[in-house]
């Protein structure tokens, strides 16, 4: 142990025994010399004999050092020092190499830290998050859907594996709070949570208490909201707040930073009262210490089966399932999958950067062959040289990794550019230990994967010939060419992928969505904020839309249950042709709209008419369908005037029922919502005036086409307040923004692929330039001879370019093959995307060809411009 410590101390030069060692060896020599002199040698002879006898002074010192310290560590230290010196001496090389690595490593790190924030880092203020699991209804994609409150109660009642099962509403909602002091409704974000929510998570209150079992109409304030709105008022506990028209008592203030289980931020937590049975909830359970996570998950599934059996045919059966707890909740697997897809994408550029660097290192090692040969001649073993070269490479990659971490910070700040969700979210994207370890081990792995081959090649070399005449290693040149071709292939792959994602975007959300989103604003109003307004929604909507239409800033306005292009169209039930007894039912997308909706969005009315004031309650029920439905149900016939059976849920009688409505209009198809598939969804439109029975009029959006650039929030807000003081706008956004949200994943993919494609193009250009320039340098003499013999300059130039283009061609073939494969895979996930899109492939190949030609022109011109006579004399 002591020996170990001493060796370490010596290694880090904390001890300097070299001086003492020298003194000791000098003394030894002196004594020996003395002895030899005593035998009658001259002082010179004695000295020489002494040095011989000891076996060489420096050799002895080296033996001494080797015994003293960890030899390999000492060598590593030397290599590191040497490597750092080399990096410092070639700043241009170091900066470009580190920068190209940093882009790949940084992009990977940024994505990892997002995944880390969403999946691996537990939210603040939760005790022992490893014992928690998310519970929900199994979804086809491996995720979880929220379950009904009654199912939640069943699980909580039956379970034996959990010490507690907590529930919260699906997501926070914008609510209105009516403070007693001002009397003007304010917009807050609130979320319902079961009364055991805080205790199951293990979170405490900083003032007052968290919910307890008997709480009804209780509220726990978010710490930040308490600070912001109430200025840390100590008297807040016990105060009454009117939220959404009902009185809630503040029982406490949550811990600072407590954010629940997900990514959302809210101002207030409200206790779910037992009569809120209908709403769906997100469920999290705390597994008892003596039960494994797997066993608990199995129990959840079993309880689900029991519930299905007991409920019989009353409800559609659902399979209950559990996932490891994370901020991403039921979407954990989707987040991981998406992050993995992005990482694959940015790893392509990392691999391209590594290939580029490996190529440069190979060239450099060729240039350093003389150095290596000298060192071999002086007795360095090949392994030692490989280790030295590898150390230099690892250093370079680590510098790249460190710069990459800095770059990741920059990338993460771009997250703010993403479209915002309806309510605020907060995911702390910190570069914590896990992220650092990730970035540095990624750098190390890349260094090993791409550094070993050049290092081995670099350390090899026929000592004698190299020292005499410099280098002409064709195997290295070939390897270098292979690296450049690999880069070209990866660049093509990235460019094609970028083009494909842009196509997905264009196809899905682009020019022909079937409606015109420009200048359209959406203001969403939630009537659950006011008890009075809820009792007569149609009256309120009538009054509101009339007054909005009268605003001078508005060209046209209407109401819609769901604006197009945002989240899914509502599913309400099936439809069937009413004039054919054998008609099959199918489920379209539904919407409830007011008159003028189609005109406002510029959706063409193909045939028939829009809803009018005539279509009131009591008047014959009418319906408008999209062209797809008309075609599907009455192909080749006139759909206008035909009866349509609507099998939908009646919220008043709480039963499914069949109504018949007359088709009065056929409108153009619009592309659906998530836009991923980009398919025109069949749509059925009901008039607001006849839709009270659906029970869906509580939340509607005012859809308004504005004149000029005025924002509508400041104008519509007062109208609502005037109609009912408890109403505030749940949110306002432009329709394009709302659509952007639905397309965010594709947009991110396209942006990342495009950015990475650009970087890899640059790298490919660098690679081609490098290899061509090097080739020119090697063939200087040959070119000199050719030109001396009268070869035209253009011919030499074309020879050089041709050499570069061969590499491009080889890379292009591989890249196109990979791109076609990747396209096939993507076509499975994104509907409407052709697996093989010839123009894209061809375009990418041409682009790379152009870049390759441009990059090899400069060295080619260089080849003929130099003084070739001098080149000949040089050798």
């Amino acid at each position: 142990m002591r020996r170990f410590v001493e060796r370490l101390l010596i290694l880090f030069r904390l001890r300097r025994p070299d001086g003492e060692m020298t003194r000791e060896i000098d003394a030894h020599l002196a004594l020996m010399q003395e002895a030899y002199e005593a035998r009658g040698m001259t002082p010179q002879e004695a000295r020489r004999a002494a040095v011989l006898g000891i076996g060489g002074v420096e050799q002895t010192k080296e033996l001494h050092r080797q015994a003293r310290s960890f030899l390999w560590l000492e060598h590593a230290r030397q290599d590191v020092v040497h490597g750092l010196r080399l990096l410092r001496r070639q700043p241009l090389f170091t900066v470009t190499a580190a920068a190209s690595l940093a882009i790949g490593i940084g992009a990977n790190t940024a994505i990892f830290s997002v995944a880390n924030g969403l999946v691996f880092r537990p939210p603040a203020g939760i005790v022992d998050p490893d014992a928690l699991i998310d519970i929900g209804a199994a979804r086809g994609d491996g995720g979880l859907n929220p379950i009904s409150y009654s199912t939640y109660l069943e699980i909580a009642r039956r379970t034996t594996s959990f010490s507690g099962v907590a529930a919260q509403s699906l997501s926070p909602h914008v609510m209105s709070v009516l403070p007693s002091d001002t009397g003007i409704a304010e917009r807050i974000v609130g979320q319902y949570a079961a009364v055991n929510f805080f205790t199951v998570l293990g979170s405490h209150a900083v003032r007052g208490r968290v919910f307890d079992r008997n709480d009804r109409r209780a509220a726990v304030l978010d710490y930040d909201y308490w600070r912001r709105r109430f200025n840390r008022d100590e008297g807040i506990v016990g105060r009454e707040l009117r939220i959404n028209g009902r009185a809630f008592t503040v029982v406490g203030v949550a811990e600072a930073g407590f954010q629940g289980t997900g990514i959302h931020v809210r101002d207030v937590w409200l206790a779910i009262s037992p009569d809120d049975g209908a709403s769906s909830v997100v469920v999290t359970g705390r597994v008892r210490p003596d039960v494994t996570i797997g066993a608990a998950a199995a129990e959840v599934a079993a309880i689900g089966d029991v519930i299905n059996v007991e409920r019989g045919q009353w409800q559609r059966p659902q399979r209950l399932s559990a996932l490891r707890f994370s901020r991403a909740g039921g979407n954990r697997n989707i987040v991981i999958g998406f992050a993995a897809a992005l990482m694959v994408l940015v790893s392509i550029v990392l691999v391209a950067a590594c290939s580029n660097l490996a190529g440069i290192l190979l060239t450099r090692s060729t240039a350093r062959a003389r150095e290596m040969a000298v060192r071999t001649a002086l007795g360095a073993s090949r392994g030692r040289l490989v280790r030295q070269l590898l150390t230099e490479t690892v250093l370079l990659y680590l510098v790249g990794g460190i710069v990459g971490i800095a770059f990741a910070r920059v990338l993460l700040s771009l997250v703010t550019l993403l479209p915002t969700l309806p309510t605020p979210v907060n995911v702390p994207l910190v570069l914590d230990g896990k992220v650092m370890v990730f970035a540095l081990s990624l750098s190390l792995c890349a260094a090993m994967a791409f550094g070993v081959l050049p290092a081995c090649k670099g350390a090899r070399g026929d000592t004698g010939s190299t020292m005499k005449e410099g280098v002409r290693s064709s195997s290295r040149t070939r390897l270098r060419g292979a690296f450049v071709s690999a880069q070209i292939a990866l660049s093509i792959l990235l460019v094609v992928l970028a083009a494909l994602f842009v196509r997905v975007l264009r196809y899905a959300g682009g020019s022909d969505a079937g409606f015109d989103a420009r200048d359209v604003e959406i203001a969403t109003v939630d009537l659950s904020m006011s008890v009075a307004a809820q009792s007569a929604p149609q009256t309120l909507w009538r009054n509101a839309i009339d007054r909005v239409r009268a605003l001078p800033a508005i060209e046209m306005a209407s109401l819609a249950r769901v604006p197009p292009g945002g989240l899914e169209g509502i599913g309400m039930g099936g439809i069937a042709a009413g004039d054919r007894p054998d008609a099959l039912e199918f489920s379209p997308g539904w919407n409830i709209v007011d008159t003028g909706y189609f005109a406002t969005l510029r959706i063409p009315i193909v045939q028939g008419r829009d809803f009018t004031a005539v279509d009131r309650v009591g008047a014959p029920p009418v319906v408008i369908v999209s062209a797809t439905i008309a075609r599907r149900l009455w192909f080749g016939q006139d759909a206008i005037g035909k009866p349509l059976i609507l099998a939908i849920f009646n919220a008043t009688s709480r039963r499914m029922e069949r109504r018949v409505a007359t088709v009065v209009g056929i409108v153009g198809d619009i592309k659906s919502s998530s836009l991923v598939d980009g398919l025109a969804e069949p749509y059925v439109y009901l008039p607001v005036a006849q839709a009270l029975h659906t029970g869906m009029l509580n939340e509607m959006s005012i859809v308004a086409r504005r004149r000029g650039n005025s924002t509508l929030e400041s104008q519509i807000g007062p109208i609502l307040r005037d109609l009912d003081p408890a109403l505030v706008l749940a949110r306002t956004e432009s329709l394009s923004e709302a659509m952007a949200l639905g397309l965010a994943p594709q947009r991110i993919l396209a942006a990342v692929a495009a950015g990475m494609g650009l970087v890899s193009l640059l790298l490919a250009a660098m690679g081609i330039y490098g290899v061509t320039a090097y080739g020119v340098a090697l063939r200087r003499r040959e070119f000199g001879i050719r030109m001396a013999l009268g070869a035209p300059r253009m011919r030499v130039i074309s020879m050089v370019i041709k050499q570069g283009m061969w590499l491009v061609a080889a890379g292009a073939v591989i890249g196109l093959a990979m791109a076609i494969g990747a396209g096939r895979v993507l076509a499975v996930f994104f509907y409407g995307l052709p697996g093989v899109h010839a123009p894209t492939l061809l375009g990418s190949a041409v682009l790379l060809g152009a870049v390759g030609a441009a990059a090899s022109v400069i060295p080619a011109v260089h080849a003929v411009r130099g003084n070739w006579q001098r080149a000949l004399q040089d050798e």
Partner: protein
Amino acid sequence: MSRNDRVELLNGTLDLIVLRALATMGPLHAYALASRLEQVAEHPLMLNQGTLYPALVRLEQRGWIKGSWRKTESNREAKYYSITQPGRRAVEEQAERWRRLSGLVNKLLLDES
């Protein structure tokens, strides 16, 4: 690997010889040790005297010997090594081990012939 084994074996032998010399003859400097070794050995210049140093360093790091600067009889500075208490115990252990090992090897060699 094989080269390492060889070095390790030689080192172990040298360590024991050095320890033994210091135990019987008291404090010695490196040159005196080397001379003593040459006296004992039949082929005096088989060994570079420099190869003694790794053994000295190793033994010192293990705490079996201690070095201190003193004057020689000819009034020169030299580093004298002396054996420590743990060193003496080690000599016994090492010598015993060596005796067993060499006994075994001898026996094997005899049996073979």
